């Protein structure tokens, strides 16, 4: 593919082919953000169930969430092409996630959500908002 061609047509065709290949290999990133974002509503819906004495909800927190985190970490570590701006997005997602999770868990949730898993899940969507926004933006950028 990268033989000693110097014709402009060949070089541009080669570059375009490489560009498409690399973009395709970077598309794990929007999928990763989407899956990471979806875990938040699921996880936060368990909070009222756990407080209500449902043992399986506690088990979910104790076993499934660490497994999920390990799986995501493994998925992340196996990647060899990083999408544009991934470091800034990671910081933003983690920063927003930490602050908004604490706000929902300690302030908003106890006051407004009560024992409703659906409302707590909605709180999870709020926490995961940057994940969804950046998943769409990253997908659009890589699809160009």
């Amino acid at each position, binding site marked *: *593919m*990268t*033989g*000693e*061609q*110097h014709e*402009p*047509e060949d*070089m*541009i065709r*080669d*570059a*375009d082919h*490489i*560009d498409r*290949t*690399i*973009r395709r*290999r*970077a598309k794990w990133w929007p999928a990763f953000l989407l899956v990471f974002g979806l875990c938040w509503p699921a996880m936060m819906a368990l909070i009222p169930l756990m407080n209500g004495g449902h043992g399986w909800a506690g088990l979910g927190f104790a076993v499934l969430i660490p497994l999920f985190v390990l799986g995501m970490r493994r998925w992340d*570590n196996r990647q*060899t*092409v*990083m*999408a*544009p*701006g*991934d*470091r800034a997005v990671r910081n933003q997602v983690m920063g927003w996630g930490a602050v908004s999770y604490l706000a929902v868990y300690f302030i908003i949730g106890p006051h407004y959500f009560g024992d409703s898993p659906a409302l707590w899940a909605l709180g999870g969507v709020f926490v995961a908002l940057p994940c969804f926004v950046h998943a769409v933006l990253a997908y659009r950028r*890589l699809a160009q």
Partner: protein
Amino acid sequence: MTHPRHRLDDLIHVPVRFSIMAALVPVDRVEFKTLRDVIEVSDSLLSKHMTVLAEAGYLTITKGSVGRRPRTWLSATDKGRKAFADHYTTLGEIMNSPRVDQDAT
């Protein structure tokens, strides 16, 4: 000096280097082995050309590890991105410029 070929960047015009930049520009960074496979060159050839591009300030090389596995990441700099974009545009202009009929001369 009006023909677009005078604007070609000799450093990038080498096909392997042009391919390296083509792979790095659309993303944040690419791991060495993946880049080698995508542009279909040997380890030594990629090392040689990426060193030249790094010395010119067109890309940065970062060494790290995941677990026990060492990894080398390559990333295009702003200077490299601009140089690649300019070179790509110039090649397009050359492609679209009227050709001189060699038989007519």
